[in-house]
């Protein structure tokens, strides 16, 4: 018998994930997005060794210098190297995106699973809460919180995470409700699987692909939110660079018109990261499509 099992192991077919990965590889834009993201992540992580300058030390002899060989992207209003700042800003902006989307996913999944699994009154209460958070005038909250606690990177992560979980909660709940009516759930009950195991062994794994896709798009949203918050002075506080607060330095007309090197690089980084994450999300959506399993 052991020999037959050993034989079976050898002809083990590819897993669902490796099949999904193959479908993802066929998606050209997603691959493009993934490569861009890889480069952005690399330059963010390696920022301290990629340029010789400090991202915060001012150099008052070199104010608003156009790009030169020394300062490839020029310098800003207090003489800091733009290239250095834009790379360091990537560390902050991408971490804010990553951390806040994780908070958002964690809260969203817990609330969505609780609502969809328990149902009844719990579901109703949690969904009213979700609606409330969704319809909160977020700017008012952000301004209030930032005014009360002062802007900080951690506050930005927390605020973004705590404002964006409702879409994930709704998605997870909806998936639970629709999967609960599938015959394989009745089948699981019929063989004696406990409710708890049905939720976590049968239903939850079937929601993972949609959650993955939602988290990817959520990351893009978080990066954009960080940029807006910081642009408004409510997110990452200077002198720490983030793509959003670098744009904030470029609010005057003569900088906008005459010194594009100050605002173009962070603008391009934001656009590039958001765009490539969205491409990755599209690719994942196709690759993880549950219909491909039918």
């Amino acid at each position, binding site marked *: *018998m052991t020999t*037959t*099992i050993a*034989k*079976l*192991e050898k*002809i*083990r*077919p590819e897993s*669902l994930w490796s099949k999904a990965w193959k479908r993802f590889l066929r998606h050209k834009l997603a691959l493009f997005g993934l490569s861009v993201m890889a480069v952005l992540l690399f330059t963010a992580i390696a920022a301290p060794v990629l340029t010789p300058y400090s991202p915060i030390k001012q150099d008052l002899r070199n104010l608003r210098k156009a790009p030169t060989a020394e300062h490839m992207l020029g310098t800003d209003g207090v003489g800091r190297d733009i290239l250095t700042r834009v790379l360091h800003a990537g560390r902050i902006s991408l971490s804010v995106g990553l951390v806040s989307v994780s908070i958002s996913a964690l809260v969203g999944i817990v609330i969505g699973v609780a609502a969809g699994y328990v149902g009844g009154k719990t579901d109703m209460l949690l969904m009213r809460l979700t609606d409330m958070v969704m319809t909160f005038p977020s700017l008012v909250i952000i301004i209030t919180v930032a005014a009360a606690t002062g802007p900080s990177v951690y506050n930005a992560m927390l605020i973004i995470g705590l404002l964006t979980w409702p879409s994930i909660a709704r998605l997870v709940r909806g998936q639970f409700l629709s999967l609960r009516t*599938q*015959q*394989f759930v*009745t*089948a*699981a*009950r*019929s*063989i*004696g*699987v*406990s409710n708890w195991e049905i939720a976590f062994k*049968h239903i939850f*794994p*079937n929601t993972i692909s949609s959650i993955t896709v939602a988290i990817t798009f959520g990351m893009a949203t978080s990066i954009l939110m960080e940029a807006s918050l910081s642009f408004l002075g409510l997110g990452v506080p200077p002198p720490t660079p983030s793509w959003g607060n670098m744009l904030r330095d470029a609010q005057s007309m003569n900088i906008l018109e005459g010194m594009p090197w100050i605002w173009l690089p962070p603008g391009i980084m934001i656009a590039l990261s958001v765009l490539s994450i969205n491409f990755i999300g599209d690719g994942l959506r196709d690759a993880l499509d*549950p219909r*491909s*399993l*039918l």
Partner: protein
Amino acid sequence: MSTPSTLVQVTDLKVHFPIYQGVFRRQVGAIKAVDGVSFSIYKGETLGLVGESGCGKSTTGLAILQLQALTGGQINFNGQDIAGIDESQMRKMRRHMMMIFQDPYSSLNPRMTIGGIIGEPLSVHQIGTPQERAERVQELLRLVGLNPAFINRYPHEFSGGQRQRIGIARALATNPSFIVADEPISALDVSIQAQVVNLLDDLKKQFGLTYLFIAHDLSMVRYISDRVAVMYLGKVMELGSRNNVFDSPLHPYTRALLSAVPVANPKKERARQRIILEGDVPSPANPPAGCRFHPRCAFATQECRAQVPELRNLSTQGKPEHWVACHHAEKLA
């Protein structure tokens, strides 16, 4: 033949689904999907359950297995009353009573391997060691005519017929005594239906299984069943041996159903008269008073409109029982 012993006894089974309406979700009525059904299933037999779509066949099957909450009635399984026992106790019973589902696509979890699916009843009921379970799964695959090497594959790699075999293997894993098969072939290609029915029949003989076989394909029911129950709007209209029900039906509804089925014998086929049922099936939320079939019955009288006909055994002493719920069954026979 010795007197058969009863495996499942259903008494006055009722399943009503409440209908809510308005902003305050007030209950305004109920769909009486199953409304007072009684029958026994004998050890080793196949009881066919037939009837038009929506008459409550699936609900009956699910209720017997306690997968659907009952509104009323008793279910006795192998001498034990299981109606409304608590779920943790019921879960332990489940290894003895399994279900085969209609939809071969949605009844298998797409994220589990075939081995995981078929082996799950074994692990749930803690039968055997992992090694023994793996061997049992392969044995089951062979038993239902599939290659044991499929154990690590996923459901989407299989055809409808193969998936239905996987569902059958899952139902057999714990060596149950009773299986509810809810239209196990109606989603399959005609060419495959016969194979699956034959497989079910072979397995029954091999393991002494007892089936509740739900279907609306009458010729298939005739082929596989020992006895047949005919349902209409949540009630059993006629119940008897296969030959009695198919060759000498007593209930006007059964006759109408059967008259729609072509017969293989050309002489009989020419003599066959189609009884066209007038009107639609009434809503189970508001079934007709008296005999539920009366608005569509050609023999309906005042009595039929006022009095609910009881299910009565019309067979003579020593003959197999033949139950019918019609006031005028004797006159029509």
